[in-house]
């Protein structure tokens, strides 16, 4: 499949795939903004993200063409990496890019009915423009090899995100304070990050991440490097919604337009987490004495705390979107736990869960978008009896839910299984118990929703509800079936994650 698609792409395009993946959506963004009708902007965004998806597939096949994973270095504008900006694609980048562009493409397709319903018509073209900017930023973060350029892309995506979240105001006014909060905290995170990068630059004189990795080894006791490290970890921690820096997330997810929630939940925190992994294991590394202790004293406890505290919070929410938002933070906890093991198996488990969680939350929020569209309510009360009136939407939702819980034959099970295996190997028996307990809480909070959906009579039988439109159902079922596919035949995604983790540990990018 991957070979087939990539072989159909002309060589001239394939050679510039890293640049084109970013450039096309970036160019489309202003064009979309000036389109007279939202529909044309919508089609443009589908084309742009679809093109990026093809480019991402090309990159994956290029990376996989060599045993152990090739590293594609692309110099922007032909400048040498140490002087200009380098895009550097290895197994980890290509996996994240594939994820972001797949979700971006599916999200673009399904967006139209919900955008039409939730955004004022005059703003739809601008909305799609913002979406493309956001997509560009996320894809940029995932492909750049330059620390400062990473900051720029992070800000591009963040600023677009603030706009997208705020546009939820036409449905729910609480979107405005949510966007405001997100803006403040996102800015704190970005500033921390750029301060950290500044420290590193002061200590080494380079911004290229591969070069940084080499030069940092010599100055690893430099206090500026230590401070830079701390700033970067915390800055990216905010962006990735690491507990307890996650508090911007529930409101932002709950009140933004349904489509934005779905897209952000599946990509934004994932990309920030990628950046964290990139800095932890490529720029810095386990050979830095302080790194091991950060993993054990910061990431692991925060991961565990998120898994428990946020799962509890999810249990008590009355709004389904907030339940899922808290559950997202808890799931970030799983990823952090995997990463904090600090072995190839652990990081691979974390990355595997990262991809699977994107598939899970993508499906869940997409199904919810369908509910919002036809029923206009997301409280637990509103979900009652929906299983009867819209079986297709809700079955897909249920698949996502069992996958989130980690029932065998679903994606969620595979990644939890890999995570548990990695924990066993590392001897963290007690952490396995925590994983089990947190999964039990997931059973509770998803079980509440499923019970309401399938076993309760509708609260208000007069409020008519119908199936979501096909434009939503098709991408929704693609994601739902992807959950099952990964669950039954997890080889492809697990292979990507393994390759990505291997590229970090066997000196891929250094």
């Amino acid at each position, binding site marked *: 499949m991957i070979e087939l698609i990539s072989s159909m792409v002309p060589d001239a395009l394939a050679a510039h795939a890293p640049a084109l993946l970013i450039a096309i959506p970036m160019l489309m963004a202003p064009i979309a903004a000036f389109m007279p009708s939202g529909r044309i902007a919508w089609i443009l965004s589908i084309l742009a993200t679809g093109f990026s998806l093809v480019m991402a597939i090309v990159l994956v096949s290029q990376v996989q063409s060599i045993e152990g994973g090739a590293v594609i270095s692309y110099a922007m504008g032909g400048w040498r990496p140490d002087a200009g900006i380098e895009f550097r694609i290895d197994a980890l980048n290509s996996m994240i890019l594939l994820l972001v562009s797949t979700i971006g493409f599916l999200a673009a397709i399904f967006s139209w009915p919900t955008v039409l319903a939730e955004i004022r018509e005059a703003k739809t073209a601008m909305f799609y423009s913002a979406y493309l900017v956001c997509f560009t930023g996320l894809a940029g973060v995932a492909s750049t090899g330059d620390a400062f350029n990473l900051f720029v892309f992070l800000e591009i995506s963040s600023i677009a995100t603030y706009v997208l979240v705020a546009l939820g105001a036409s449905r729910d006014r609480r979107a405005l304070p949510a966007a*405001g*909060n997100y803006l*403040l*905290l996102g800015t*704190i*995170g970005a500033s*921390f990050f750029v301060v950290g990068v500044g420290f590193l630059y002061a200590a080494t004189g380079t911004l290229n991440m591969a070069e940084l990795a080499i030069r940092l080894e010599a100055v*690893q*006791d430099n206090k500026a490097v*230590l*401070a830079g*490290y*701390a*700033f970067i*970890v*915390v800055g990216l*921690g*905010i962006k990735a919604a690491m507990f*307890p*820096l996650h*508090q*911007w997330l529930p*409101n932002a997810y709950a009140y933004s337009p349904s489509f934005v929630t779905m897209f952000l939940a599946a990509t934004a925190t994932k990309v920030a987490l990628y950046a964290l992994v990139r800095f932890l294991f490529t720029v810095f590394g386990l050979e*830095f*004495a*302080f790194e*091991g*202790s*950060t993993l054990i*004293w*910061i990431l692991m406890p925060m991961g565990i705390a998120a898994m428990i*505290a946020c799962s*509890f*919070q999810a*249990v*008590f*929410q*009355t709004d389904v979107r*907030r339940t899922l938002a808290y559950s997202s933070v808890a799931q970030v906890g799983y990823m952090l736990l995997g990463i904090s093991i600090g072995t190839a198996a652990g990081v691979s488990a974390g990355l595997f869960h990262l991809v699977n969680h994107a598939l899970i939350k993508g499906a869940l929020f997409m199904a919810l978008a369908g509910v919002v569209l036809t029923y206009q309510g997301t409280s637990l009360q509103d979900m009652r009896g929906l299983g009867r009136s819209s079986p297709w939407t809700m079955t897909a939702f249920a698949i996502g839910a069992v996958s989130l819980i980690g*029932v*065998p*034959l679903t994606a969620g099970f*595979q990644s939890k*299984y*890999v995570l*548990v*295996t990695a924990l*066993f190997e590392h001897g963290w028996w007690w952490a396995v118990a925590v994983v*089990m307990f947190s999964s039990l809480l997931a*059973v509770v909070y998803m079980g509440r929703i499923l019970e309401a959906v399938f*076993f309760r009579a509708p609260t208000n039988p007069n409020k008519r509800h119908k199936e979501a439109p096909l434009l939503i159902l098709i991408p929704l079922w693609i994601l739902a079936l992807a959950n099952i596919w990964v669950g*039954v*035949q*997890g*080889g492809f995604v*697990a292979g990507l994650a393994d390759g990505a983790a291997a590229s970090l540990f066997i000196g891929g990018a250094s």
Partner: protein
Amino acid sequence: MSGLIGQINPGLLLILVGFAGCLIPVQRVRQALMVATPVVAILMLAMADRGTDLATASVIGLDLVLYKVDSLSFIFGLAFLIASLLNAIYALHTDDRLQDGMALAYAGAAVAATFAGDLMTLFIFWEITAVSSVFLILRAGTKAAYQAAMRYLGVQIFSGVLLLDGLAYVYKSTGSLSLEAFTSFDQPGAKLIFAAFAIKAAFPFLHNWLQDAYPKATVVGAVVLSAFTTKLAVYAFARMFPGFEMLIWIGAVMTVFPVFFAVIENDLRKVLSYSLNNQLGFMICAIGIGTPLAINGAAAHAFAHIIYKGLLFMSMGAVLYRVGTAKASELGGLYKSMPWTTIFCIIGAVSISAFPLFSGFVAKAMTMSAVATEGYVIVWLMLLFASAGVLEHSGIKIPYFTFFGHDSGIRVKEAPFNMLLAMGMAAFICIAIGLPTIGGFGYGWLYNMLPCTVTAPADVCMISGKEIKPYAPYTVDHVLTQLQLLMFAVLAFILLKRFGLYPPEKPGTILDTDWVLRKPGYSMVKWAGTVWGKAGPALTAFFGRMGARTFEKIETTFSPRGALARGPLTLSMAMWSAVLLGVVMLVVLLAS
């Protein structure tokens, strides 16, 4: 003769058709499929080779054996498939998509689990049995059924989780997922897996889910449920824990304690649920003995039991369907209006009571002999007592209070034809495998399928190194002993009836062989009941308060209005960022 057909796990076929069946709206088409599929599956099973891995798959580095048949799994699988055929016929009169489909999927999951060749596959289908079967309870539609179904689901999933933990443990320590029998509890994972099986097999104190859920299921649902879950657990025990002495005692206790409950219970489907427990006890006990004879006894008993217990549940279901109740105190005299049901019920009753010429006799005799041969005198006595108890509550109480006894005056139509057909087929099997071998019929057919035969001893039979002797149930002393026990019991019942000591409102008598035990036993049950009646509410209230307080604490911390969500958001977040930055710096500084 293994073509492609012989390499597909028949359970998988049932599961797929079952799930698809939920989507077929036309009753006749769907039900034709439901009846035809088990037949096809039986043919597929007949074509399968024994003892090799017929279908394998590799999932994330685990080598799974999806289909493996040997002499032990064969007899259980066959019994499950026959039961699913009978159930499908029994369900023909109702038009319920979900029930039809889930009943078949449930049966399929049990079959597939039986033919699983490794722990992971077993676990997957183990869970599917739990999830699919819960619909059979839910479809009853009452609030009580809904609550029971949720409790049932919780217990079953918990069992699955234990199994998953156990298999993970096994896999981590041995690197294999094989279904090899454990030899001691000290082996990694043995205890976890034992606990998982114990829940499904409804061991004493873990059994409440069974009596809770089965009587609340639909008419068809109870019949379906009675066949699979517990017998799958019995199979699993026979596969992985043969010869564990602990099982002998657990089994013996299991045979005895439900007798008391069954005797005083008024809901006849609940009586059958208790008697189900009692029957499982015989099988568990036999597995604990672990000799070839005992394993054969357990397998034969399971096979016969699936059929006659199904038959009894079917007859009570027919009564419930026609009359609307299955309470002993409200029934009576139904033989006039439901003569065929009466006959079939009696056949089921005499089979479960192990009358010679019926299937229970040829099966139970093996277990009893195995216990006696191994010299467990006390266990043997317990089983004897339980046998008498079976006769009392299943053999006499069920048919007597339903179809005879005082005439309740209820006049209803005979059960629908499809129910009678299913019951007739089950009754036929009960007799056919109970008779001495004459022509093609008789117990020889059953005995030829047993796991441990002289010609082909399976792995499970080699554990004790005992030699395998063909067993003959129809010897003079077997038949005489059994008849003596049964006749004495019947006589006691008649005498008690004649002297008015057996009031129909309080059906509570145990048998003459244990006349001495009767009074203290019964009073003890009564006393325990009183104590529980007094102490129970207090205890419940105490734990309820404790639970409520903990829950409140958790809620005040985590709920949307709780402590974690209080305060201006931005402020607290900004503070947390600063705090975390400080902590990270501290850690980094200390470490470098």
